[in-house]
């Protein structure tokens, strides 16, 4: 039995794979992307989010793999009916790789498909273990330049690319997603370089910048880093 920490379970998600899906947002991420729109997913610690109206909720809930799978399987009927399933997002789901594997195994045993949304910032063994259990992977590529990546996201691009190169050969269906951030990675040259990095034949989705990204920072008592940096 493993335990994990989740900050949201959202049903009927629209951007996370085929069919009717539930997306599990896992708490904790090794990166600190300046434009992150889920800042409550970054820290592994439980956090209190305060709204303007004074109400407060604790963000972060602990689950065993058995309990989380059971909760997700409550919607197994519509997932099977529609060819949908469960998507793991975050935060960075690979930061809780063992937990995600355990939940995914339980879902797969019930015939429920799984998908992963990842930055790829994880040890190779974790990456391969989780990806090997997925029906589909959304792999972020946020920048093509290692220095810029370190500056904006606080991580090691090369380690991510190692994982991505393995994904390309793994046979697991996948696509690359690029969050387009004004002034960071959205010039034509950036796009061309990102396409080159994704490699020949790769499916690349350029996602428009989410203007609501700063919304949750004040609830955590934080400043929106991208605003400070640009």
């Amino acid at each position, binding site marked *: 039995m493993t335990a994990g920490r989740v900050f949201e379970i*959202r*049903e*009927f998600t*629209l*951007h996370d794979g*085929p*069919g*009717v899906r*539930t997306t599990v947002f896992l708490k904790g991420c090794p990166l600190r992307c300046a434009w992150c729109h889920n800042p409550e997913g970054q820290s592994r610690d439980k956090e209190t989010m305060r709204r303007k109206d004074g109400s407060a909720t604790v963000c972060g809930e602990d689950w065993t793999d058995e309990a989380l799978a059971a909760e997700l399987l*409550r*919607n197994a*009927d*519509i997932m099977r*009916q*529609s060819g*949908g399933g469960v998507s793991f997002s975050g935060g960075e789901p690979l930061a809780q790789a063992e937990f995600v594997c355990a939940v995914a195994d339980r879902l797969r045993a019930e015939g429920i498909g799984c998908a992963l949304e990842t930055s790829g910032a994880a040890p190779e063994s974790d990456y391969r273990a989780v990806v090997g259990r997925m029906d589909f992977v959304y792999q972020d590529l946020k920048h093509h330049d290692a220095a810029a990546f370190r500056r904006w996201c606080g991580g090691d691009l090369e380690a991510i690319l190692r994982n991505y190169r393995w994904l390309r050969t793994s046979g697991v269906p996948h696509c690359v997603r690029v969050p387009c951030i004004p002034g960071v990675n959205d010039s034509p040259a950036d796009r061309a370089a990102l396409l080159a990095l994704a490699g020949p034949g790769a499916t690349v989705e350029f996602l428009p910048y989410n203007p609501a990204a700063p919304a949750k920072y004040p609830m955590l008592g934080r400043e929106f880093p991208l605003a400070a940096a640009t």
Partner: protein
Amino acid sequence: MKPRIEKLLDFTFSRRQDALRRDADWSPLLARFVAEGVDDETRARIGLVEMLRAEGETPAFLDGERLAFTRTVRQIPELHTAAEMDARRAGGTAFGEKGVVFNITADFAPTIRDGLDARLGELRDRLARCRAEGDSEGAAFCENAALSVEAVLELAEKYRAAAASRGLHDVADVLARVPRFGARTFREALQSLRILHFALWCEGEYHCGLGRIDQYLLPYYEADIAAGRLDDDGALELLEEFFVACNRDSDLYIGVQQGDNGQSVMLGGLTRDGAPAFNALSRLCLKACGELKLVDPKINLRVDKNTPVEIYRLGTELTAKGLGFPQYANDDVVIPALERWGYEPEDARDYTVAACWEFIVPGCGLDIDNIDAVSFPGALDAALRLCADGAAEPGGYDAVEAAFLAEVQRRADALVEKYRHVEVLPGPFVSVLSAGCIQRARDICKGAKYNNFGIHGTGISVAVDSLASVRELVFEKALVSLPELVRLLDTDFAGRPDVLAAAKAAPKMGNADGRVDSIAKRVIKFWGHAFDGKRNDRGGRFRPGTGSAMYYVWHAREIPASADGRLSGHPFPANWAPSLDVPVKGPVSVVRSFTEPDLGAVCNGGPLTIEIHDSAFAMPDGVDKVAELVRFFVLRGGHQLQINAIDRDTLLDAQAHPERHRHLIVRVWGWSGYFVELDREFQDQIIKRVELAAS
């Protein structure tokens, strides 16, 4: 869309038909009726005849129009004074709404097929028999009906002559054929339907449904296709012209709110013999609506567990355009429910909806399916006060629930008494278009094959959530006593924010939470049997439903705060839907909660209403996902579903700048209307619903 249709559409949107209209003063006619003590049936006949004759309608043709008939007189004759109606009510006669025939779908098919001349022949034969048998009531009906038919034919002839003199020879040719004789082509059938439907409104009927047009117009479409007279493009163009025409006069049609005019259409489902009925014409109807994006006609789509996903997708594509329809009805639930209420299997398979969502059988029913409503939160409020006063048996939560159900029963019984005897005012022309009236030589107002009454159930989710809250706050957590809770309801929880917070946090329908959904199951089961064995004096049953119609606004004003944490002055949700202030996990859980009870027991109608944020349809497979959600509802045994795709910002902007959003369509309580034409109260309720959907 063809330029010709665009032109007609533009004509309608820019309201140029207003210039064709004039006002009529019918007060001398009414004064004459009163002075001479004219009987109801004769008044109805004279009213229609005057409306259609020299005093009233004059032929009007729009540029490029191929299907004629446009209203040119704003007012239809009032047939009774308010004093006359009040006196009858005071004398103990109950009426459904205004008293006239309404909220039904006439039997258009036989008259489109045979022509009105055939009906005239039948009326003359029947008149002779009535005279021979000394049936003076029957003879009077036959005479009034025949005169009404002749008035319709005269106006059609006037239109024909006017078309011919203006050189509109193809229009004149069609009018030379219909409605006097049977239609032979799709165009003739549509023209005939247009005239018959037009005449019903002129007779004073309202909420006149169009019913299963994809079934009864199919033979004409197929004949034209087979003969090579028409292709799908041509058929689509004619359908679109007919649909545009449904929007031209509709501001003159009576309803509680603008748009509430009951021009409903039912597509798909099963034939009377039980075969799948979705056909090429159903497809064309959906396509026409998708191109036109108009509020009328209001599209309903019958589906079942065997319906291919593709049909759900076709429906969802309309939802994605923000039309608020189609509204779905589940044959697997509705047909057996109607059979249990005594509808013959063939009739049950032929069902359509009345104005909004009440399930009726077209052509042969005089069901009054919205005659009144029971306020479930009102019943609970009364029951809680009884329990708090110690008037009910002590005994924990179960006693409260039992007292609530007893109050629901008491209110149901009171409605049975109130509506045991209901009178309907006659309509000779609608009788001609209703199965069996000519054979019986009686107006439809005297009764038809089915004479059931429908009773809405308002705010069921508010009552169920409140029960769950009472159980948790009073009996499980002992946070507050029942008498204290009742006092707090009268003061909007003043001084006890903790109780209000706990009430809001208690289990709510819409989250697939067994603690509250199990209560709903019992309440619906009880409601389904509340009228067992009860009959009105026409032998009709009382059919309980989950609809609210406009009562959701009215009933909410009758009680203070409710135990679910809803404050005074806040509305109930419309129909069968989560309470407005309740955060729900998402549409899957909403569907799961609201399909948990056995809805076959409460099939008067009343849809689950779900708001889907329109961004869902920005994704390429958004239509697929929503289509699967609808199918999930059907597979789970849901009875009726409507989906709104809108976003809150647009609605707020439309409130502030109505002139920029004249075409914004929303689903209100059982019909789609233009948002900017609704009263503020209804607008606010929709915004509230959408806020909960946005996530």
